[in-house]
């Protein structure tokens, strides 16, 4: 890899698990050997283009700072962080809902009626926006993982979390009581790199979009 290598930030976790197979066999496929190792900077099948594997919450920072020229990240993360970067395409895959979830039998009206509502979430910004729209107030309990446990153990009355199939919710006896928004994978770009070198970045961005939208 050289100093002029173009870096694309790919997410680890749920989105990354969907992304890597989609790129298999394409010019932007990630090197299989490197993927098996603990290396976080992975060559692709295209010389001069490499991938960084990053946690979703860190990824927008790498792109906004111009360390990575392009990146793929969920729109839920983008909305929470509000970083200064370009969002070139909705890639369609990784679709899920941002939902208010509570134990079976708890309704939205019963949550509304609580004098002191406590909501546990990884998405305080989206939750606050929804509370404002609904004219509600609540104490937000910030969590970074395993939010499903919060209502079961009395940490909160309900949670606001991403729901894809609903399997995790069902396994914990939770149900969706309201949908706050939708999320999907987005192709993002560093503002400076894209605007100052569109001839270098745009073809790669178009290629990524075409490859990832094929089966979305």
């Amino acid at each position, binding site marked *: 890899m050289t100093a002029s290598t173009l870096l694309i930030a790919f997410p680890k976790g749920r989105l990354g698990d969907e992304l890597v197979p989609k790129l298999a066999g394409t010019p932007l496929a990630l090197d299989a050997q490197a993927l098996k190792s603990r290396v976080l900077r992975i060559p692709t099948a295209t010389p001069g283009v490499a991938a960084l594997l990053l946690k979703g919450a860190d990824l927008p920072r790498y792109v*906004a*700072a*111009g360390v990575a020229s392009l990146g793929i990240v969920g729109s839920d993360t983008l909305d929470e962080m509000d970083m*200064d*970067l*370009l*969002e*070139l*395409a*909705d890639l369609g895959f990784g679709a899920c809902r941002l939902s208010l979830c509570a134990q079976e039998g708890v309704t939205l009206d019963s949550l509304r009626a609580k004098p002191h509502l406590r909501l546990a979430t990884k998405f305080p910004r989206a939750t606050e926006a929804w509370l404002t729209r609904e004219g509600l107030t609540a104490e937000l309990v910030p969590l970074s993982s395993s939010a499903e446990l919060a209502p079961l153990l009395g940490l909160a009355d309900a949670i606001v979390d991403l729901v894809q199939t609903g399997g995790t919710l069902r396994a914990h006896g939770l149900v969706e009581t309201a949908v706050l928004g939708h999320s999907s994978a*987005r192709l993002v*770009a*560093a*503002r*400076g*790199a*894209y*605007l*100052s*070198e*569109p001839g270098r970045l*745009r073809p790669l961005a178009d290629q990524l979009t075409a490859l990832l939208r094929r089966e979305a």
Partner: protein
Amino acid sequence: MPVRTPHFPDLLFDSAARLRRWEAALMGLLAAQGYRELHPSLVLRESLPEGALRFFDGDDLVALRWDFTVALAGLLARGFAAPPDRVAYAGAVFRRPVQPWEAVERFEVGCERIQPEGERSDEADVELACLLMAIPGALGLKNAILHLGHAALVRRPLEAEGLSGGLADGVVAALSRRAPHRVREVLKGHPAASRLAAHAEALLSELDGPGTLDALGASPYAHLLEGEREHMDRALKALLPILPANLELRVDLADVAGLGFYTGPTLRLWAPGAQQELAAGGRYDRLFPDLGRPWQAAGFCVRLSRLLDLAETRPDLFEPLP
């Protein structure tokens, strides 16, 4: 152990010398075109915004100068019955950064072209663009890109559709991200959604040379924006024949940065591979009328702090010093 606070970077020998040299070169360039220096006070006492560095001077809340254009506008509106037509400035501004890696203290050089309301502004806009085109050479930048935009390309369609407040802000934020799909999301269910989404697609379809203006033909607001298109076309015809060899001119129809401030053509200077624009400006005809003066103005600001960072991180972008 001494701590170097990243938000208040100290300039050591080479950087300090470079700053002095660049300031002198740019102020010399501006003075040669008739721009006279004004130096507004470092401490401001009026309309202090959130991001300013505020402190108490006795019982009075004051702030360090956060923006030269605002400081100069106050000075000119208070002290001049008729404005000097060309002014220049150099020095530091202090404001809390939007991005965590930006410095609070930023060095700038800039200029403003001020006219009585109602005068034709085409020539002033081209004059400023010509000056900005000379900046890369004065700074020793090997190559640069000048983006030409126009604030009305977004504002007028929004006004024509009666969009304001949060909805208009949402559309502008989506365009700033260059995300036409976000425009559709923001306007879902609005009667103008399909028209404004098509307009966004047209604005974002190209980022290239003069041919980019043709993309406006695909917009549902092409007729409404005919005047702006002609204005940009005239500017391009004036600028392209005198474009320096190391400068590329691009039309950026979707430039919405500072849309609440700018009212007409906008200019942004980039270097290939730079993460931030190195100079920016445009026409802001509402500034002086809001201060009770019937004047119109345009100007630009060269962000020397960003250039100093760029010289440290990408020395290959600059000509070697003699």
